[in-house]
């Protein structure tokens, strides 16, 4: 397998090219307030749309009376399930979620109707005037009861059961530890609320400007629900204010199009924060049992685990999330034997789906808690236990798949723990830096410090045989001033991660042009797949790369043609792009790119597929994944045991990145991901009480502020990944995964508590 990362003709030293810290093309408008997010969309004739949502987690709808709402001033239409002309359902893997609840509502916040009005206040009052007669039903809220309960949906209560059997299920060892762990429901809590605008088109179709993670999968679902041919539905990306998984599923897409088509007017929907909490999927709550068995020397012998994910009312990506939890239930360690079973079930809790880390977050909290427990039982240093069992290239996963790429597990651990520990707390430290912060509740003498470590593995790209690809177009031409300019187009959703920067860097490196423009991200070009699974650098970066290379080949062909012969056979290697010229390496003849482009623009589109994967077999075995990224985190915390308050003092990390294509952007991903991991560890949980969401606001659902996050010290491990464009691995998810268990491990060290649940709440520490 080739390990070449900078192939001939691709320059690694181009100003603004790969490997450089390059400014974002959207940076200036984003700091000056001029960048148009989806909530900034405005049309002089637009109406405001708003959805009515169920106050009950489970109820039968006896009747809906919209007549009062429809008669209110400024109201243009009121729509219900009866007004959906096409498929009444949507969904990412299974189309099981109604556009509007028709006969039954299955979760608190499910949409029932939508209105369009001149003013948002009129829309709000109109939905309050819709009269719904509910027959309240008992909600199914315990995921353990779901399998035996009456089905709450025609498709049943089981989204997926995934068994995994690896090696000898009866293998034994001298030391076993077991534990049961829980993960609460975390929210992605992006800042930019769901929003978009639909504009009716003259051909009876609709244009939808939308903040999403995957335009094309929205496109298919929207067209089907509207019963419109795909060519009459056009989607374009509107500015995305963060995503983290919550924009993979359809939220307002169908509603806003229905309202626009019904009224013949542009319609805008913009969720409030409360509606945002109800309107997108969350991270799956998990209940997990593990038993780890090892020899007395600390060699892992067997993993046993049973994992239960609460998928909530509709399927979303639950089957894929479960596969990740099961496949990586052991973490980045070698187990010769494993017996794992996972279930994802339907309940009347809020629907759960994708969030950064995607199933691995839950598993990692369990397996890393277990590794600490096992080290304790063995009387072994927890770092030593991890190093002793760390995966390396050539080792098998629990699925039997052999790791053929890089696997620097030892390296990320060693780099992580090599960072100096922060200084001990001193009498002169500001009181604000004690746990409790500005509350000034802690006594310095009571504060206890703890340190913990955790390590993770994350699969990159889609798994289990999915045909994962991205499409990119590159056009090279002369601008009016006679200089070459490249335009790159790709439907990859820029959600903040910096793909737009990377696309420009790649084009500069491949084509040696300074000026690279970005075409619109929309459905006029083929799919780029989702901005998720840490996949866009690899998938769409790769698509941009091969599109640019195809353009470069055409430049060489034009040069060869000038010499009267085609670019074929041995002549192919005679030509190369050197700076702003194509050079005939044999004759020394040079052909300026500007001359070659005088023949006309070169405009080519290419699709990039990753190496195919296989489905898992009946025993959960198979080559189901493409590539893996590893990270280690060490947390230092101060704890006030009396009030149960925690301050995270420092996070150190080593992360396997393959190759940092934009080092400053990688740092931003690490720091941002760690903050979300910190949130899950000690702050963030959607509180669901008998099916009802109790805290759908930023007043009651707290995400880390600048006072809550800790300084991050990071080392990037750069071992180019074979087969990856430029050798780069996705970097977005790993920081979120093992930071959480590292922090909890540190709190255990400080308090001596078991702490089997995240987020760790004050009462878990002090009561």
């Amino acid at each position, binding site marked *: 397998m080739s390990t070449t990362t900078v192939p001939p003709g691709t320059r690694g030293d181009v100003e603004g090219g790969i490997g450089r810290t390059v400014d974002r093309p959207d940076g200036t408008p984003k700091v*000056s307030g001029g960048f148009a997010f989806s909530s900034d969309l405005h049309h002089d004739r637009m109406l405001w749309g708003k959805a009515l949502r169920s106050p009950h987690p489970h109820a039968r709808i006896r009747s809906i009376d919209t007549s009062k709402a429809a008669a209110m001033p400024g109201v243009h239409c009121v729509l219900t399930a009866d007004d959906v002309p096409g498929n009444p359902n949507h969904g990412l893997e299974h189309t099981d979620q109604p556009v509007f609840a028709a006969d039954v509502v299955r979760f608190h916040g499910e949409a029932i109707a939508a209105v369009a009005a001149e003013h948002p206040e009129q829309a709000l009052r109109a939905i309050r005037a819709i009269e719904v007669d509910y027959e309240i039903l008992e909600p199914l809220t315990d995921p353990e009861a779901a399998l035996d309960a009456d089905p709450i949906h025609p498709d049943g209560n089981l989204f997926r059961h995934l068994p995994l059997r690896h090696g000898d299920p009866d293998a034994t060892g001298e030391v076993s530890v077991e534990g049961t762990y829980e993960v609460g429901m975390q929210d992605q809590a992006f800042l930019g609320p769901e929003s978009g605008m639909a504009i009716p088109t003259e051909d009876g179709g609709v244009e939808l400007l939308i903040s999403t993670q995957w335009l094309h999968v929205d496109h298919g679902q929207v067209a089907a629900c509207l019963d419109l041919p795909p060519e009459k539905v056009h989607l374009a990306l509107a500015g995305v204010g963060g995503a983290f998984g919550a924009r993979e599923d359809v939220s307002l897409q169908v509603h806003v199009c229905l309202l626009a088509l019904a009224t013949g007017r542009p319609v805008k929907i913009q969720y409030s924060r409360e509606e945002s909490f109800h309107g997108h999927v969350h991270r799956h709550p998990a209940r997990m049992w593990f038993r780890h068995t090892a020899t007395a020397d600390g060699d892992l012998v067997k993993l046993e685990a049973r994992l239960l994910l609460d998928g909530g009312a509709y399927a979303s990506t639950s089957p894929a999330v479960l596969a990740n939890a099961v496949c990586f239930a052991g973490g980045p360690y070698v187990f010769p034997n494993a017996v794992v079973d996972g279930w994802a079930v339907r309940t009347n809790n809020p629907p759960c789906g994708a969030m950064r880390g995607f199933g691995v977050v839950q598993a990692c909290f369990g397996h890393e808690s277990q590794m600490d427990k096992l080290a304790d039982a063995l009387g072994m240093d927890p770092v030593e236990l991890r190093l002793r069992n760390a995966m390396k290239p050539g080792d098998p996963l629990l699925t039997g798949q052999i790791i053929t790429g890089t696997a620097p597990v030892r390296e990320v651990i060693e780099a992580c723990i090599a960072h100096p520990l922060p200084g001990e707390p001193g009498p002169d430290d500001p009181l604000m830096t004690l746990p409790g912060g500005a509350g000034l509740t802690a006594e310095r003498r009571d504060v206890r410090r703890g340190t913990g470590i955790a390590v993770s593995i994350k699969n990159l790209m889609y798994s289990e045989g999915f045909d994962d690809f991205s499409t990119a177009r590159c056009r090279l031409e002369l601008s009016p001033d006679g200089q070459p300019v490249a335009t790159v187009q790709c439907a990859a959703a820029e959600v903040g991660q910096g793909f737009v920067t990377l696309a420009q860097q790649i084009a500069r490196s491949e084509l040696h042009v300074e000026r690279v423009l970005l075409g619109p991200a929309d459905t006029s070009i083929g799919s780029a797949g989702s901005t998720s699974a840490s996949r866009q650098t690899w998938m769409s970066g790769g698509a941009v790369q091969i599109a640019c290379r195809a353009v470069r080949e055409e430049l060489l062909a034009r040069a060869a043609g000038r010499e009267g012969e085609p670019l074929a056979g041995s002549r192919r290697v005679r030509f190369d792009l050197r700076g702003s010229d194509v050079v005939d390496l044999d004759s020394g003849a040079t052909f300026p790119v500007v001359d070659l482009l005088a023949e006309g623009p070169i405009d080519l589109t290419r699709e990039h597929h990753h190496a195919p994967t296989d489905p898992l077999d009946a025993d959960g075995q198979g080559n189901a994944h493409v590539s893996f990224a590893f990270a280690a985190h060490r947390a230092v915390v101060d704890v006030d045991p009396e009030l149960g308050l925690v301050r995270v003092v420092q996070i150190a990390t080593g992360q396997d990145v393959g190759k940092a294509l934009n080092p*400053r952007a990688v740092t931003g991903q690490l720091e941002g991901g760690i903050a979300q991991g910190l949130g899950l560890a000690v702050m963030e949980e959607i509180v669901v009480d008998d099916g009802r969401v109790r805290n759908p606001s930023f007043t009651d659902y707290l995400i880390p502020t600048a006072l809550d996050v800790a300084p991050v010290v990071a080392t990037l491990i750069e071992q180019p990944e074979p087969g990856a464009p430029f050798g780069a691995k996705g970097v977005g998810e790993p920081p979120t995964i093992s930071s959480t268990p590292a922090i909890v491990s540190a709190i255990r060290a400080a308090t001596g508590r078991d702490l089997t649940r995240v987020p760790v709440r004050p009462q878990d520490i002090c009561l």
Partner: protein
Amino acid sequence: MTTPPPTPDALAYDLTINDRTHSVPSAWLGESLLYVLRERLGMPGSKNACDQGECGSCSVQLDGQLVCSCCVLAADAADGDIRTVEGVASGSGRRDGAPEGELSDVQQAFLDEGAVQCGFCIPGLIVSVHDLLDRVPDADELTVREAISGNLCRCTGYGRILEAVATVQSRRAGGGGS
């Protein structure tokens, strides 16, 4: 439910924003300053992430005080002096003679330090950081953290943002700022 529907022509007033007077010819009295800026005056730089004063994305200065514009009634601000993200480049961080549209030193530092990802929180942070550094030019890191703790960011973990603030302070101390 006898509440009358909002009457679009309820009120006319003027707002002074970034040293210019803007007429609001007819607006429902219940509209927030944020709504009027964004939807009636075509100034969407101030953002709407929570609509209850928790996230700071809508931060503006009203008579020199940092406020969440989602929690201020627009009509109440009629006699005030409002400065938004669209106006910071001509405020404290503007270099002498800088042309219209040039970035302030805070905006430039956010770009230089990689503080921008999705960018939704950034306009509010830009306004907050200007407010802080106008009041406390030599704020230490803890003071900076506390000052921007009312501005939620979900992408960055604040690391590059804190670097950007330090860069502004260093540049101003070196004579490169105002």
